[in-house]
């Protein structure tokens, strides 16, 4: 038995996975904060201003590369770890394991795949249009006229449904991810772990509801 191509330690995988994940969790907060401006009710004026600000900020430009790096690291490591873990038990059990764990933690890889597919769709809707790979649509005239594109995308009940289901899956992923990141960094202590778990649950619910409000608003109210 040998490492078979794993030159960095198992624990180092965990730190990198957790660090990338923690950065992505912070990004989600920023992303949600900006997106909620879509609901300002001024035809996307405030939202467009914030987009302009983000587009001109050099710091944001750098963070965009960091963000892509974090996504790629997190996804690739997730796949590498999953393959390694499956190989660690070549013969499975006859009886389905009944050990007490939360479903959130058991299906991180599966929820991750769903989020990845959603990410591709989401990039196709907005980011790749901004980069000029796809033509602008809806009432948009420029590549970063996101507000009319949002209005257009969420006219379709299918898109609304796909986005909301993805946000729920994302919430499940985050519910485990939040406290798991602390555990991986070695921050698990009876003093503060209960608080971390509570904050993690609130965070996961807030992200799911916060993002879900946007498609619902554009489909039913706008």
């Amino acid at each position, binding site marked *: 038995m040998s490492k078979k191509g794993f030159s960095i330690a*198992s624990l180092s995988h965990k730190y990198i996975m957790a660090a990338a994940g923690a950065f992505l969790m912070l990004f989600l907060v920023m992303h949600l904060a900006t997106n909620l401006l879509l609901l300002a009710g001024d035809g996307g004026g405030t939202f467009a201003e914030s987009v302009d600000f983000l587009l001109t900020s050099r710091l944001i430009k750098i963070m965009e590369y960091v963000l892509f790096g974090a996504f790629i690291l997190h996804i690739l490591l997730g796949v590498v770890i999953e393959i390694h873990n499956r*190989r660690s038990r070549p013969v499975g059990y006859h009886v389905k394991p009944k*050990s007490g764990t939360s479903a959130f933690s058991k299906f991180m890889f599966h929820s991750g795949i769903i989020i990845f597919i959603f990410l591709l769709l989401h990039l196709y809707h907005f980011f790749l249009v901004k980069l000029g790979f796809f033509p602008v649509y809806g009432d948009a005239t420029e590549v970063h006229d996101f507000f009319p594109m949002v209005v257009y995308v969420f006219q379709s009940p299918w898109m609304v449904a796909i986005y909301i289901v993805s946000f729920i899956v994302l919430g499940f992923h985050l519910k485990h991810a939040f406290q798991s990141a602390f555990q991986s960094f070695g*921050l698990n202590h*009876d003093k503060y772990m209960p608080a971390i778990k509570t904050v993690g649950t609130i965070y996961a619910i807030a992200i799911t509801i916060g993002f879900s409000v946007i498609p619902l608003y554009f489909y039913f109210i706008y």
Partner: protein
Amino acid sequence: MNFKLKIWRQKNAATKGKFEDYTLNDVSPEMSFLQMLDYFNDKLITEGGQPVHFEHDCREGICGSCGLYINGRPHGPLRNTTTCELHMREFEDGSTIVIEPWRSRAFPIIKDLVVDRSSFEEVMLAGGFVNINTGGALDANTTPINKKISDRAFDAAVCIGCGACVAACKNSSAALFVSAKVSQFAMLPQGKTEAAERVEKMVAKMDDMGFGFCSNTYACEFDCPKGISVEFIAQMNREFFSAKVCSHKK
């Protein structure tokens, strides 16, 4: 009590195993799980069959030898209980009991339900000890240790190395075992001196033996017969991180 038994039979590491179905009648509810298997083996031998091989030694929950995957859980349905301390009264009369060996790439099957746990031994040999110059016995209390710390080190030291954590983990990760061993030494003054070197060596050996990566599902804590907490995994992660960042090359 009467039971239907579904037991994994495998001649040796090289051959393919399969499940065999048996019926066993007149089992006393007071029998321990291993006594039930002894009783069953006696019957098999009388009938001219091969007895089912399983590992056991102390039969009082402290040696870590016995370890069977019973009805989907290592050491059976009770928490904080080893297979030898499990009694037949915990099972429903007339039910089917499925008995499997630990499943992990790092625990190859030797025969039937016996697996080779040398990989744990290898991890211990890599750093699970304290180097001390022997001599005359020291006076008690020459090295003061905070009661809370010594209690906590003891909580880690109660690990019997049975391998239930690996068997329970969906990734067959040995993180709980290794972290208990790393932590029990790291917390005490005698073990602190070599703490950084120890965690690096033990984690490297753990990876080398083919265990999976911990993904914080905490199945290990749930099924550990000694109730070892996953807080020790966090402690190992801290120890490893500080060792990687702070320790010297030479």
